């Protein structure tokens, strides 16, 4: 299976699992976000553009599956995927703690931005529920699941060899 097909398969399966199975789990007052974890895994391994496209596609799929306003989740996840990809390409490159940090920041940003976006489009949302009650348990569960999900993504998406990476500096002589 080529790279793009692997990304599509990961994101599609994660979105399907999230909407049908994971979202109905209530563990210690929170729900893990498997789709966000898979998206961050893909973005860290394949970069900002792949992350943004995968996030947009996954969000659109979730909007369709849940009959939500088309584009809302797509916008949130496209930005999350892009940010995780940029982080992976720059500061987080080669760092062991990068997935955990990306999940930590990604979960908080998605919650805050999602709350703001839903508020802006006129939906009645509870800040207490979205940002306090469910965020902390959800964040904890995401952090617990971050390592196995990232390992799975790493297994399915072969990391680029050194020669495949963009050569930024060429030594002469």
């Amino acid at each position: 299976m080529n790279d793009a097909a692997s990304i599509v398969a990961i994101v599609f399966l994660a979105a399907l699992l999230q909407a049908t199975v994971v979202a109905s789990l209530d563990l210690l007052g929170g729900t893990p976000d498997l789709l966000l974890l898979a998206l961050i895994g893909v973005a860290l391994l394949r970069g900002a553009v792949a992350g943004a496209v995968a996030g947009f596609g996954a969000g659109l799929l979730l909007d369709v599956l849940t009959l939500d306003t088309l584009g809302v989740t797509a916008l949130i996840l496209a930005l999350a995927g892009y940010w995780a990809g940029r982080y992976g390409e720059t500061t987080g490159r080669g760092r062991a703690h990068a997935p955990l940090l990306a999940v930590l920041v990604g979960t908080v940003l998605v919650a805050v931005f999602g709350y703001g976006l839903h508020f802006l489009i006129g939906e009645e949302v509870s800040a207490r529920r979205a940002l306090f009650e469910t965020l902390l348990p959800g964040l904890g569960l995401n952090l617990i699941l971050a390592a196995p999900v990232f390992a799975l993504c790493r297994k399915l998406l072969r990391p680029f060899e050194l020669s495949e990476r963009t050569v930024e500096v060429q030594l002469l002589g």
Partner: protein
Amino acid sequence: MLGFLVVLALALITISFRESEDGPLHDAQAAAASALQPLTVAMERVAQPFRDAYGWTAALFDARAEAERLRAEKEQLQQQVIQNESALQSLVDLKKLLTYVDGPTFPEDYTYVATSVTARPANAFEQVIVLPVGSDNGVELDAPVVTGDGLVGRVTHLTADTSRVTLLTDESSAVSAVDLRTKAPGIVKHGQTGDSLIMSRVRKEDVVKVRDEIVTSGWRSGPLASLYPKNILVGRVTSVGQAQTDLYQRVQIKPDVDFSSLDAVAVLVPRRTVARR
């Protein structure tokens, strides 16, 4: 690339809002949801045994305390049933004498479409569920959705074979209800924490007590009527509070429905609709 995706997403949001429910984008979304429905149903069926196993294991931890509570409740309810049967008989007799005309009540005037829950949104912003039944199954927009434990919510988005249900715990939900014991009316909305609900606009002179049952009021005024039929259980009172400066009491309610683990629900369909089909 990111700029293009952001613009595309914003365009989709704008069109979704501006076009009518039967516009091309909504039609495309409904068609895509229908195409994906077999996958979501299959996934839900595969997950069901695991979910049941998790529920069974979790229930083991408080099974003993639950059994004791239920035994005590059963004894109390047995006495109540005898009183209720006697009261019901009197009510039937009195209604006959008065040739009393009643509004639609639950469950007499409704049939139902029982179905599983196939999807939920992946965020805490909306309290909704998606069901694999739609207008082809007789479901109507605004149809009430219940479980054996009480009211769940109402259908807020409908396609031919899928419906989206906004739960009672969502910020946008509200239902007119009464205290079954005192007939004190009020409006039930989402509460401050978790799945709790608040019944507001309850007059101070109405004496609502802890453990009172709150049911839908099913009012009717000329051509206007409540979306919910009468007598569906909403929850039980857990606390009653009032400040001296407030005009009304604030009644906190705990629903019997466990909104976090809804697996199967029933969509109520008025009997007239079934007769028409």
